[in-house]
């Protein structure tokens, strides 16, 4: 397993040398959505608290870094941490309301969606951040402003984000924190009886998850150069974040990455083929069908299924 990971990493590091600029872009989205999925995985996959409003954290991080850069001149390299902290603050509020008052299942889903929608509407109606027109970042190509002439630099930054988040998740899984999150997902009352402070660990998971997601907001802002409230706070982005780890295997270290390698190219392909002539959005139908298929046939996601396939011949 270790050499396999090292080999995959070597390939990914070498890949930009031979890829077309377009293919590099596809990989950037694979990595970036894998990163967001990995961040969601902590609270959604491991702790089993299905946040369907993670776009809120992307948006807060994105606007924070962009505004700090434009208004105060703060480099987004630091702004991304500020964005992460602000997103974590929002995550704390959402988590506190949800966990203190025992909202479970659909009620927690609704709470998280509601918060993201509030953020979207506030951004739409706040002229200082561009309102409905959106907020635009001037391209300078200055690396200190998180801007790069060469698309391949974004490739490595996105790859780095994905690897950092994956390392964080792997570290959590090896520790008591991870063991508790998994147990909380399985049965909260049993956890309480066994001495687990479920509120504290769910909050911690939410804070770490929203912080990482907020950090991702900076990448979003300075890769796309435009922030539209409907896009960056919208339900579709939240769905994009949730669906990759679920398809790949929620609550596993490699699930979100696998899910992103499956879904991001699919989304891109359907955008290319259906993007013109009023067919845009067809990829959402494909998502729906895929999600139904996964829930029916691979309820734990693709990665656990792959592992079973892998383990079976070896066991014989």
């Amino acid at each position, binding site marked *: 397993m270790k050499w396999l990971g090292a080999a995959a990493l070597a390939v990914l590091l070498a890949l930009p040398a031979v890829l077309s600029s377009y293919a590099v872009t596809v990989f950037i989205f694979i990595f970036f959505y894998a990163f967001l999925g990995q961040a969601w995985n902590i609270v959604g996959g491991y702790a089993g608290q299905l946040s369907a409003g993670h776009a809120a954290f992307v948006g807060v991080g994105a606007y924070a870094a962009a505004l700090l850069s434009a208004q105060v001149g703060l480099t987004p390299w630091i702004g991304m941490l500020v964005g992460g902290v602000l997103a974590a603050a929002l995550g704390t509020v959402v988590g506190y309301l949800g966990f203190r008052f025992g909202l479970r299942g659909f009620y927690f889903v609704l709470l998280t969606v509601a918060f993201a929608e509030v953020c979207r509407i506030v951004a739409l109606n706040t002229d200082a951040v561009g309102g409905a027109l959106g907020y635009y970042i001037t391209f300078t190509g200055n690396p200190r402003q998180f801007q790069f002439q060469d698309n391949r630099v974004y490739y490595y930054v996105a790859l780095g984000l994905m690897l950092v988040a994956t390392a964080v998740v792997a570290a959590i899984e*090896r*520790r*008591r924190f991870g*063991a*508790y999150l*998994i*147990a909380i997902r*399985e*049965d909260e*009352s*049993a*956890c*309480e*009886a*066994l*001495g*687990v*402070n*479920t509120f504290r660990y769910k909050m911690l998971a939410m804070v770490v998850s929203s912080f990482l997601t907020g950090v991702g907001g900076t990448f979003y802002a300075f890769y796309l150069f435009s922030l539209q409230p409907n896009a960056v706070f919208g339900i579709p982005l939240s769905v994009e974040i949730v669906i990759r780890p679920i398809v790949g295997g929620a609550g596993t270290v490699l699930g979100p990455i696998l899910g992103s390698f499956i879904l991001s190219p699919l989304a891109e392909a359907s955008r290319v083929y259906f993007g013109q002539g009023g067919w845009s959005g067809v990829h959402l139908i494909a998502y729906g069908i895929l999600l139904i298929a996964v829930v029916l046939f691979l309820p734990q996601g693709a990665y656990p299924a792959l592992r079973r396939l892998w383990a079976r011949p070896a066991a014989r």
Partner: protein
Amino acid sequence: MTPLLEVSGLSRRFGGLQAVRELSLSMARDEVLGLIGPNGAGKTTAFNLLSGFLAPDHGQIRFDGRSIVGLSPHAICHLGLCRTFQIVRPFPRLSVLDNVRVGALSRRPRMEDARHRAREVIEQVGLGGKMDHPAGGLTLAERKRLELARALATEPRLLLLDEVMAGLNPTEIEAIVALVKRINASGVAILLIEHNMRAVMSLSHRIAVLNFGEKIVEGEPTAVANHPRVIEAYLGEEYVHAPSR
């Protein structure tokens, strides 16, 4: 020496139903106290109150001299009072070892130590052969043992056992009775709810009987079993004066 558990005036109402009324109990550090009573007598509610899953309307609970009313279940567990559930609640997709490790982690935060401790406890309850099996695939008897093992792994001083023998066959019950005796002999006080009379009689030092939320009798097992009010509660008034066999 102060009693390990001291309960006084404990009450809890659900709407029009007084589930537990003015319950008082006292337990010594090495005692096994049986809590019996007909269905709906308030036994499980009493457990939920003692373990912090429900807040009492009023009343006092002292564990090791300190009031635990208002503490959350996990805090009560850390003080050394751990309960099992009548309907066992294993983490079904986790292995037996990982299940028990969750309990062990409350005393040993390092994963390696907790795993080591979990293995010991699993051997102790006789599930050693199932260490890496997923809990969802265990038989009922095995799941009851797992429930016991998880609670034991938190290293309690008082263990609340809610019907750990329900649904088991006589051989399995005998094995659990022996196991509970060993646990008690290792210095753990045990409060148990049980419907299997033979098991309660042979395990308990004392027995308390609940009926309609109230403690009606408390005492030595044989005295309790022959007490008219107990017979009345279980069988009805007409049996009280019936000639004994």
